[in-house]
């Protein structure tokens, strides 16, 4: 491990440890009182919010529109976000929430409350794991924006906390709820593609403007300065992991990753802020384009692209390939051997919609959930995610994405960093399920 990486990890571990020390002491008792989400819930579900910026406010807006939800406490260090959130809660006719925002770790006080069931964490990335671990230690279920964790230690800390305290931890990967994906998942499970062989996806999104906008996500640029890896794998890997039954019949085995040189952020700063701008010449570790390949225990492979620095339209790249057929997301097309009308020619995936539309999408109130809300990304897929979550909580069952998913999908960040630093050497995935991936049942989404 290179020094920079190690010191980053150490720093994070220190933060995590401090967070843990602060909250564990008086909280264990509370955790033990509550069940592992295995009891049906009849009273309103009480959410505590940590982070109500672009994305947190979207979650808040969606949840406020759902039945039997309360928001007794909100935390944000940005006053205007905090008060906006308060206003929204009250406008929704709910009791006035208690506000937290004195400093960066004021969420620790929020976690001490005994009137919260679930924490929603939508902070800068570095706080996701500390907040979730502390939340579980304090007897709350945790939900967090992506990525759930940035280091292997954080991944394990989440798994350990979840197992120890019987609290679940769900990463809020909304990409897993798109109608298109769920149709492909249905087709894959019905064997339309045959034995699955390969999936590909990517996060290819020009974020140069965001990285240089201090008002927006001031933490984003720093990662490009400090890290060199696939920094944002969960949007593509979430859907792929469902298709391949990762943690539930298959498991990531190892990964290799390589990055190109870095120059686009320097170019951008030079062009927009002049050659004397500090970022015009600063050494940026993150290569502009990163490619990773993952092999699973059942010998399927995955290719991932990560590129947030180059000028590029978003591509929607998503491939699912088996011995009998193939789906290409950027073309919204499939080819199925001996079934597609013309040999070796694409046909629209929409041709299979009627037969393979997912049950979820047949039953939901599309108009209600599909309403565009306030905040970043408050649309159908995120609304469906919360709809599914509330349903699971009320039924007393595990949510669709559990702590093993959060850990293994997020682990791509530190693992790819290690592989890149070692010239592309293969790096083994930890098995966060400790062998149970072989016997765990395929995710049921009925």
């Amino acid at each position, binding site marked *: 491990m290179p020094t920079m990486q190690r010191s980053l990890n150490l720093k994070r571990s220190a933060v995590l440890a401090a967070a843990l020390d602060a909250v564990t002491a008086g909280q264990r008792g509370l955790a033990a009182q509550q069940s592992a989400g295995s009891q049906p819930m009849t009273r309103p579900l009480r959410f505590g919010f940590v982070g109500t910026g672009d994305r947190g406010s979207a979650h808040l807006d969606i949840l406020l529109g759902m039945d039997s939800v309360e928001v007794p406490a909100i935390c944000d260090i940005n006053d205007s976000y905090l008060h906006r959130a308060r206003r929204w809660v009250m406008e929704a006719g709910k009791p006035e929430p208690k506000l937290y925002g004195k400093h960066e770790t004021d969420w620790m006080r929020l976690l001490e409350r005994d009137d919260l069931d679930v924490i929603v964490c939508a902070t800068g990335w570095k706080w996701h794991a500390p907040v979730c671990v502390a939340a579980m230690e304090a007897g709350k279920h945790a939900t967090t924006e992506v990525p759930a964790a940035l280091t292997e230690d954080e991944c394990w800390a989440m798994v350990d906390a979840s197992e120890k305290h019987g609290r679940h931890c769900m990463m809020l990967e909304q990409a897993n709820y798109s109608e298109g994906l769920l149709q492909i998942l249905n087709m894959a499970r019905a064997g339309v593609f045959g034995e699955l*062989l390969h999936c590909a996806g990517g996060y290819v999104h020009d974020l140069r403007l965001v990285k240089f906008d201090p008002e927006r996500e001031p933490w984003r640029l720093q990662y490009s300065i400090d890290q060199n890896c696939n920094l944002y794998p969960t949007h593509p890997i979430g859907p792929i992991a469902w298709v391949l039954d990762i943690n539930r019949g298959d498991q990531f085995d190892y990964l290799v990753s390589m990055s*190109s040189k870095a120059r686009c952020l320097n170019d951008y700063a030079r062009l927009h802020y002049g050659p004397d701008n500090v970022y015009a010449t600063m050494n940026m570790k993150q290569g502009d384009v990163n490619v990773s*390949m993952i092999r699973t225990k059942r010998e399927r492979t995955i290719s991932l*692209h990560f590129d947030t620095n180059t*000028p590029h339209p978003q591509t929607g790249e998503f491939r699912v*390939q088996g011995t009998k057929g193939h789906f290409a997301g950027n073309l919204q097309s499939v080819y199925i051997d001996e079934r597609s009308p013309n040999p070796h020619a*694409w046909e629209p995936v929409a041709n299979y919609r009627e037969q393979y539309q997912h049950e979820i999408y047949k039953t939901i109130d599309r108009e209600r959930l599909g309403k565009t809300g306030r905040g970043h990304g408050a649309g159908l897929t995120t609304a469906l995610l919360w709809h599914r979550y509330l349903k699971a909580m009320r039924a007393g069952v595990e949510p669709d994405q559990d702590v093993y998913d959060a850990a293994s999908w997020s682990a791509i960040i530190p693992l790819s960093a290690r592989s890149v630093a070692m010239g*592309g050497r293969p790096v083994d995935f930890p098995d966060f399920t400790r062998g149970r991936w072989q016997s765990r049942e395929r995710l049921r989404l009925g």
Partner: protein
Amino acid sequence: MSSDFYSRRRVLQGGAAAMALSATAGAQVKTLRVGFVGVGGRGTGLLRQMLRMDNVTIPAIADINERNLARAQKLVADAKLPQPEGYSRGERDFERLCERDDLDLVLNATPWHWHTPISVAAMKAGKHAATEVPAAITMEQCWELVETSEKTGKHCMMLENDCYYQETLMVLNMLRDGLLGEPLFAEGGYMHDLRSVKFGATKAGPVGNAEPWRLEHTLKRNGNLYPTHPIGPISWWLDINRGDRYTTLVSMSSRGGAMREYAEREFGKDDSRAKAEYRQGDVNTSILRTARGKLVHLYFDTNTPRVKEHITRIQGSRGVYSHMMGKMFVDGVSARGDEGSWRARHEWEDLKPYKERYQHKIWRERGTAAASSGHGGGDYMLIYRLVKRLQAGLAPDMDVYDAAAWSAIFPLSEKSVAARSMPVEFPDFTRGRWESRAPINPDEIE
């Protein structure tokens, strides 16, 4: 590490490495005398293009299949050229052909394992060599080509037609003009369902385009067995061997299953082909890195039912070209919806206007003549350029270093796959001269 074997070999053979091939290795030739070895489907196609060139004669043709030979001889006679002498006394009869004293060039389009032996025999007998792809299938063969070429002062060109596609050369022009900025990443693949070609049959009986040697490699090897079509154009764009070079590769294969499934379906469960062990994983992916920090992502997939895809894409610091989409995006030129918002929607632009502006000179001048030939006109351009360069006494556009570096991906990927995707180093076939060699210039000598 992985390059030990090759670098040690380099040291041992230091003596042979002394001579470098100069770009002007030969005298001008008024009439180019070409011997053909292998005139099956591909060889005959190339012969047809050769017969369209001025100042070319075909004194000799070898093929173990006498019907093919007779057909080729007749083609030449029909073109009002002297009837070529035929060689068909067994697999090594090309050696007699190479010994003739009335040939300048020996062009071979045989099964893969003959490409290097024939090219080497030709150069040793004082002829230039041109070979179908891949030029070599082992590292030993790659070095043998380089060393023979340097020792004899004869050229060896691999006949990579994809380098002469209209869009390949258009992108080359764009890069030279700076339109796309510095290239950072390229992606490509050979993705073509060859199951019936490999088996030479379907349930309906034999097929006309059988290539049984492909099946042999699918049975015995596991890697990227056919890299040159995608890597040729990409190498031109990245100035490989002419300012940059490939340094590292990692490769990964999925499980194999599609070949057996196909054999079972087409030939029955009890057929030996349905029971055979196919080593080649169905989907292979590789990542290559260059000395200058460029990244290449390659696909190889000839086992699965699929649409033939040309996913070629090149990402520069200022823009991107996607062959698959037929689109471009150029920073500061192409439109962006929601300008100034981080949700900016970069919009793909149609290629059309760029095609006209960046049309390559040889396509401007000879596009009409090329249009009727195979592989999108690439076959005509390929033969045209080969003949022109040799007649002028110059090295062909693609030289032995290209043949070796591009073909080396086959054995190197195999090695990486076998070693659980360990990085494998590329030998430097140019022995350091990649830094100073002039960029490719396919419009020279017109």
